[in-house]
């Protein structure tokens, strides 16, 4: 527990650093943001009033402190384009992204674990080679390619599933597969290599020697220990999954967090972009912490080491 507390405290400077980096990066744009916001038709009085209202006349350090203070109580500013609180917009988009990511994770784990285990059992066999070849193909496919292919084949040609998001479970299947496809490849590869490594341990021989069947040994003994690295990798993949969600949400027209970020860029809607980036980063950091926590629960050696 002490170890975990230390890790939590350790993320605070990183979190502040993220806020500072994003804050500075979005504010070094030349020109008064208010002028950009107003476009061509404005008069000086309007500019002054808005600048004052939005606090852009204050020193940048004070603006930063105010932003952090706001963010701590869940206030991420107001959208330029829609004049709505950014937090509200994120909360509206969040369920879509969570649902997408969860389904993608389930798909990636299911497919990755099964193929990884089969490949490890059939090590260097034809099936192993084939699975590993396909998994590398999965890792190397750009996510928009997977999305477009799935959309073309299963939605357009075969007509099995809806083309775009419609609020139903069925309409989320294709995007989830597209998003999970890359991760499934890496889960499979990781499961295979870690299972093969564990299978060489002495206690596996012992279990086999006392007459347990091979399947029982793999599920009861080997898998438990080989899952450790896979769990960590999955949490670290959260970050690339959120990157990927930007693409899948764009292809399948899902109004999630990624879509929010893309439209914010096109609308030059700085507060929304800032809020979404901050939010996704917090999710990534939380995911890493969770992985650490899981790891220390699953493997007591880590806690003792610290």
């Amino acid at each position: 527990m002490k170890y975990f507390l230390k890790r939590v405290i350790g993320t605070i400077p990183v979190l502040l650093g993220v806020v500072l980096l994003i804050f500075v990066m979005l504010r070094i744009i030349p020109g008064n943001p208010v002028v950009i916001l107003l476009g061509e038709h404005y008069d000086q009085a309007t500019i002054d009033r808005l600048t004052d209202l939005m606090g852009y006349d204050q020193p940048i350090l004070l603006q930063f402190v105010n932003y952090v203070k706001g963010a701590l109580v869940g206030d991420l500013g107001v959208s330029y384009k829609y004049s709505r609180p950014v937090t509200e917009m994120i909360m509206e988009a969040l369920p879509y992204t969570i649902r997408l990511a969860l389904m993608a994770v389930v798909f990636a784990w299911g497919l990755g674990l099964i193929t990884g285990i089969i490949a490890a059992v059939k090590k260097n066999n034809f099936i192993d080679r084939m699975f590993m070849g396909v998994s590398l193909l999965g890792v190397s496919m750009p996510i928009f390619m997977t999305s477009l292919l799935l959309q073309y084949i299963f939605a357009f040609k075969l007509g099995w599933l809806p083309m775009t998001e419609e609020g139903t479970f069925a309409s989320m299947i294709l995007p989830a597969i597209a998003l999970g496809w890359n991760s499934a490849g890496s889960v499979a590869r990781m499961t295979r290599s870690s299972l093969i490594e564990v299978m060489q341990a002495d206690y596996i021989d012992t279990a086999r020697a006392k007459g347990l069947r091979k399947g029982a040994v793999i599920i009861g003994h080997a898998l438990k220990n080989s899952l450790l690295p896979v769990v960590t990798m999955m949490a670290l993949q959260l970050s690339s999954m959120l990157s990927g969600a930007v693409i899948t949400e764009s292809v399948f027209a899902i109004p999630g967090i990624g879509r929010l970020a893309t439209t914010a860029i096109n609308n030059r809607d700085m507060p929304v972009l800032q809020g979404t980036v901050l939010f996704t980063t917090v999710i990534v950091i939380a995911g890493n912490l969770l992985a650490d926590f899981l790891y220390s629960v699953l493997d007591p050696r880590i806690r003792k080491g610290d």
Partner: protein
Amino acid sequence: MFEHEDKNMALNEDLQSQIGERDGIRDKLKRMCRENPLAAVSAVVIAIIILMAIFAPVIAPYGEAEQDLINRLQAPSAEHWLGTDELGRDLFSRMLYGSRLSITIGILPSLISLTIGVVAGLAAGYFGGWVDYVIMRVADVMLSIPSLILAMVVMYTLGTSTVNLFIALSMTGWSSVARVVRSQTLSIKQSEYVEAARSIGVGRWKIMFRHILPNCIPSLIVLFTLNVPSAILSESSLSFLGIGVKVPAASWGLIVNQGRQFLFTQPWLCLAPCVAIMIVVLAFNFLGDGLRDALDPYMQR
């Protein structure tokens, strides 16, 4: 007599392979080509693609922006190998020209981020203390922001253009390089020859770049090879979203973006460049994996 020499040589080879360290990078690469044909084939594929990019004007049957409005949206044929787009431009030629940008964007930002990562990692590992703390926390910050989203923010700030895309992608990859270089520096720093160099008064920077850095080179080659495909994927993703390369320039990602509206009528327009991206990424991944096995036994898969 000959038998005796043979035995000696065999013994020698055996010893060398046991020591491992004795092999130069060149020997290890030769062994990789022998034992891992897939990696060797990938290297050849990459070389061919780079040559095709360089000689695009010579190979391409049509000009990059040559329009033929009568033959718009043609299916693949003998005249147009991959068909034509909505302006009657030959897709194969466009992809050849597009490969120049896509490959350059894969390699150049990776080199830049490698350089930044090396300097940051060496400094963090060698100096330790607050230098280490600051550099590694900055690396942590960069690593916690999903890379595509970070690149999107940079593109927002700088505006969408090809040069800015280079900057955005150079900024994102250095932190993982810095981590690896730092940890290797930490262990090499303790070795006796570094201490010897220090004792005869060799300067700090010289120790870092002349004595520590060469030991990191195998890992750096691997990191670079695996960084290129992720840069290519980032570029194509950004261009696909319309916040990367701007027309009239063309990259594979942008061609996908433009062909997307014809997915259901002329699917080859966006799937052909997708396949091209996949082949390049796959080749770099195979090569990177092979290099890792050959050069860097300490790095985990």
